Each structure stands twice: as structure tokens, then as C-alpha cells.
């Protein structure tokens, strides 16, 4: 009954593929181990986006990271979207596919935001069922990422990490742990991020996201437009003590710095990761 997790290889240290860096990547072939692409940006008919994606895919492993699966929606699963997702996956052969533990679409209207879910049993069952449906359609295990949130619902009955862990166990999917999102939510909701990290099932963590945020004093917004802060680096270090080295990626979605600045951040992650390289993920 015990399955070996995670089923995908450790890809090392990657960056998000953003059009701002297409030419730099092709000209300089930087030492990035792999790239993560925003799925929806490449669900187009042709032209530049797919041209560059194909070229970069020739040189690097790629994973697909979506924002519109809307796994937490109560609308039925968008089969047209799944079809396009599979089509793109067939084209670029990503090592894995991920999306977020949230809802974005309701009654056919897309908020284009990663909206929070109430943490309770009914939601767990609902999501596990839908993740199962998606995994069956795609014929592979997917990764679900924790999002930053700014509200807590009165309908929540448990902590975010209990909710998250329960879903991935029940749906038999994998985790994309966003350390910055954990930090942001910990500040916004006043919990201890270490407790979160201590309680996720380590054998399900396939990937880690690191990113920057904007601090507005009384709360923090997950903006992905700043360098990673020290507290998030510390949490990363803390996570790896338990998890061993995990495929890690740095998200930068705005206020794009010169490429070498992202490379410097990536090297910092690699350095921390190398310290924990030999630690095996064995405890649950």
C-alpha cells in the first residue's frame, strides 16, 4: 500500500521562463537546471511564445505551472481547458504539471486570482475528487501549490497545513510548497510557519517555490516583484533540514531585474540545497 514518493526526479534549481529573458537564455545558455513555464501563456495557436518555448525546451527540462485549473471551483471541471493542457504537455513533454490549491473561476467568470478556500472536510472531499479526475485525465500525478491568503473564513475548521496535507493524501497528488506563501500567510494569519513546515507530509513534497513579496505594514502581499527576504531564506533552510534537497525554483513575475541577479539568488538556493543534498526523505 505504501507508494514510493515523489515519483519524479530532483531537477535541481530552476527559474520561471518569462518573455523578458527569452533572448538572454538562448544567447547565453545560463546554468539554470530547468525552467518553469506558466501554462496559460503557451495555450496559444502559434507565433513567438511557442517558438521560444520549443527552442528553450530543446536545451532544458521544463515543468508546466498553471493558474486556471481552478481545482477548488464548484463549476464542473473545464474539459476544454484540460484538453488544451494535455495538448501542450504532449508538445513540450514537461517533467511535471502543477497548479494551485485555490479557486479562480465561478459561474464561468474568471477572477484571474488565486482565491482562498475554507479549510474544512467538505472542501477536502470536493478537491480530492476533482484532483483525482484531473490526474486520471492527464494520466499522471500533479502537484498542488499552497497560495498566499489574506482572509480567513469563519467556515474553516482546521489549519491550512492540515487542510493541505489531507487533500494531497486523499487525492494522492504531490506538493509544490511555496515557502514565501507560507511566510506571507503566517504573517497575515498570525501562525508559526515552522509548525506548517513540520507538519506537511515530507514524502509528497516534489518542488519548492521561493519568491519575494511586498510588506504593507499590517499585512504582506505576495507580489513576486522583489528579491527573496532573509526570513524566507531561513524558512527554506529550515524546510530542507527535514526534507533534504528538493527541486527548487525562484518566481519573479514583475519588476524584472537583470538576469544575473536572478542567477545570484538561484546560486544562493543551490548553496543551501547542497548542504542538505545527502539527507534522504524517508520519514513521514
Amino acid at each position, binding site marked *: 500500500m505504501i507508494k514510493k514518493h515523489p515519483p519524479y526526479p530532483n531537477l535541481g534549481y530552476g527559474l520561471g521562463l518569462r518573455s523578458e529573458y527569452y533572448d538572454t537564455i538562448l544567447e547565453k545558455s545560463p546554468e539554470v537546471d530547468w525552467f518553469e513555464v506558466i501554462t*496559460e*501563456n503557451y*495555450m*496559444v*495557436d*502559434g*507565433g*513567438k*511564445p*511557442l*517558438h521560444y518555448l520549443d527552442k528553450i525546451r530543446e536545451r532544458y527540462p521544463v515543468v508546466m505551472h498553471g493558474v*486556471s485549473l481552478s481545482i*477548488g*471551483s*464548484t463549476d464542473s471541471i*473545464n474539459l476544454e*481547458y484540460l484538453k488544451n493542457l494535455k495538448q501542450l504537455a504532449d508538445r513540450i513533454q514537461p517533467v511535471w504539471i502543477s497548479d494551485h490549491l485555490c*479557486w479562480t*473561476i*465561478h*459561474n*464561468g*467568470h*474568471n*477572477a*484571474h*486570482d488565486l*482565491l482562498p*478556500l*475554507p479549510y*474544512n472536510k*467538505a*472542501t477536502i472531499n*470536493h478537491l480530492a475528487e476533482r484532483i483525482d479526475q484531473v490526474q486520471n485525465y492527464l494520466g499522471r500525478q500533479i502537484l498542488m501549490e499552497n497560495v498566499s491568503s*489574506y*482572509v*480567513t*473564513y*469563519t*467556515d474553516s475548521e482546521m489549519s491550512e497545513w492540515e487542510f493541505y496535507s489531507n487533500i494531497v493524501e486523499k487525492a494522492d497528488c504531490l506538493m509544490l510548497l511555496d515557502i514565501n506563501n507560507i511566510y506571507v500567510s503566517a504573517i*497575515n*494569519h*498570525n501562525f508559526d510557519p515552522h509548525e506548517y513546515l513540520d507538519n506537511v507530509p515530507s514524502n509528497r513534497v516534489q518542488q519548492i517555490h521561493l519568491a519575494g513579496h511586498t510588506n504593507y505594514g*499590517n*499585512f504582506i*502581499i505576495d507580489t513576486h516583484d522583489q528579491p527573496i527576504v532573509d526570513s524566507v531564506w531561513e524558512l527554506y533552510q529550515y524546510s530542507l533540514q527535514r526534507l533534504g534537497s528538493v527541486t527548487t525554483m525562484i518566481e519573479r513575475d514583475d519588476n524584472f531585474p537583470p538576469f544575473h541577479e536572478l542567477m545570484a539568488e538561484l546560486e544562493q538556493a543551490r548553496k543551501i540545497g547542497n548542504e542538505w543534498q545527502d539527507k534522504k526523505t524517508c520519514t513521514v
Partner: protein
Amino acid sequence: MYSLKELQTSFQRHLLHGDNDIIEHIVSSQHASDKERLATYKNAYYGRLAEALATDFPAVKMSIGSDQFSKLCSDYIDKHPSTDTSLRWFGIHFSEFIQQHTVIEDYKFLTELATLEWMFINAFDASNADPVPASLVTTIPNESWPNITIDLHPSVYTLNSHWNVVEIWQAMQQHQTAPQAMYLAEASTCVIWRQGLSTRYRILDKFEAIALHSAAQGATYAQICERLAQSIDEQVPDFTELAMLCARLLKTWLTEGMIARLSTDTQ
């Protein structure tokens, strides 16, 4: 307890219409009130969609200024919530919406300008197709020419405009002062397409516009020549000259990568 569906309905009503019944389902805390917390989502919702429109319609924004553009965006967001999984398609109704909006009273050219910008977006990521090489024409036997039909590249769009929107757009692209909007004595046609990875555009003269429209509608080579002849309303058209004009246009389109297929099937 709300069902998940009810919760999402309330939350969405807050985002889309500012309804506040969701508030009783949000826990308030000392360092940020429930209203403040919800505002993060509502601001992000409008901000993200307005940003998508500003990215897709920079010339429209520049023409009417940031304040009016914000108002236009917010009216559009209310009227046309996104129904696609990608923001790529959010602006699909924008030019048509502008036509119905009061902004058109002061900026009569704005619909055409928005249509032009949307065509550039469509050309940018339209389907790929290998353009027919110009050399192919030499392999077509003479007797086949009259029945040849032309499939344009999927990225080819044409805009018939009554305003000088192409000049306005071009000046803004080049960060120059845009010319005054002007109603044109004669409508002008602009073709937009993608050659390789570059999006290109060109204003057509009257004859090329007629020929390209005819080709797009599936006219045969002979029919294209005929329509050109009809458009020359002077004396009896010189058919040799017409045939040469037609051949020259076809050659231009071929060298510019605008043709995806020349079909010689007779019916």
C-alpha cells in the same frame, strides 16, 4: 455554514459588484479588518484586469489619458467579466464596447484604434503556417492560373479605417507626438500580419485593398482580376496592365510571407 458554492458566489459578488454579504464569513483580526483584507482581493481583481487592457491597448490609453482609461476599464470589467482561462482573451470585446460607450463622443476614432491594436495581438500569436515560397509560382502551368485560389496566412488581418488611426498608432509606438485625429476623405485599408516572428503592417492602395479582400473571400485569380477591372471606372481597362498588376500584387504577398497556400484545384 455556507456551502462552498454559496461562499464562492458571495465572494465573487463582492469582487464583481462590491456586494458585502461575504463579510460575515470572514474572520476579522486586530492588525487588518475584514474589509481591508477583502479589499486586497478586490483591488487585485480590478488592477489585474485593467493592467491586461493597458498592455493590450496602449494607444487607446495614451489617446484618452490614464484617468479616462481607468474609468473605461472599470466600466468594461463590470460589463464583460473574463470568461476565459487566459487573460489573453480578456480584451476581445473592448473595441465593440468602446463603440457603445460615452467616450466615443469625444474620441470618435477610438473604436478603430482599439480594433487595430487587437488585430496586432491576434497576428502575434495566430497559428503558424509555412509561407508559400515565391519560387513556387514558376511551377504553376499557365492554364491553371485563372482558377487558382489563395489561402492567406492565418495571421493576416485587414482593417478598413475612416480615421487616421494607423498614423496615430505609429506615432505613439515611436514615442512621437501623435497627429490630430482626422476623418479621412477616403477610407484606408491596413494589412497586419506576422512574417516569421515579426508582426508587420502596411497601408494598402485602393487596388491592393480590393485584391486582398477578394483573395480573403476565396476569389479565384481570374475573379480578382475582374474585380480590379470593375474598380477602374475610367474608360475600358487595359487587360494586359491589369494582369501585370495582379501578378505584381501576388508576388509582393508571396515575398512578404502573406500566403499559406496556392490552390490549383479547379472546383
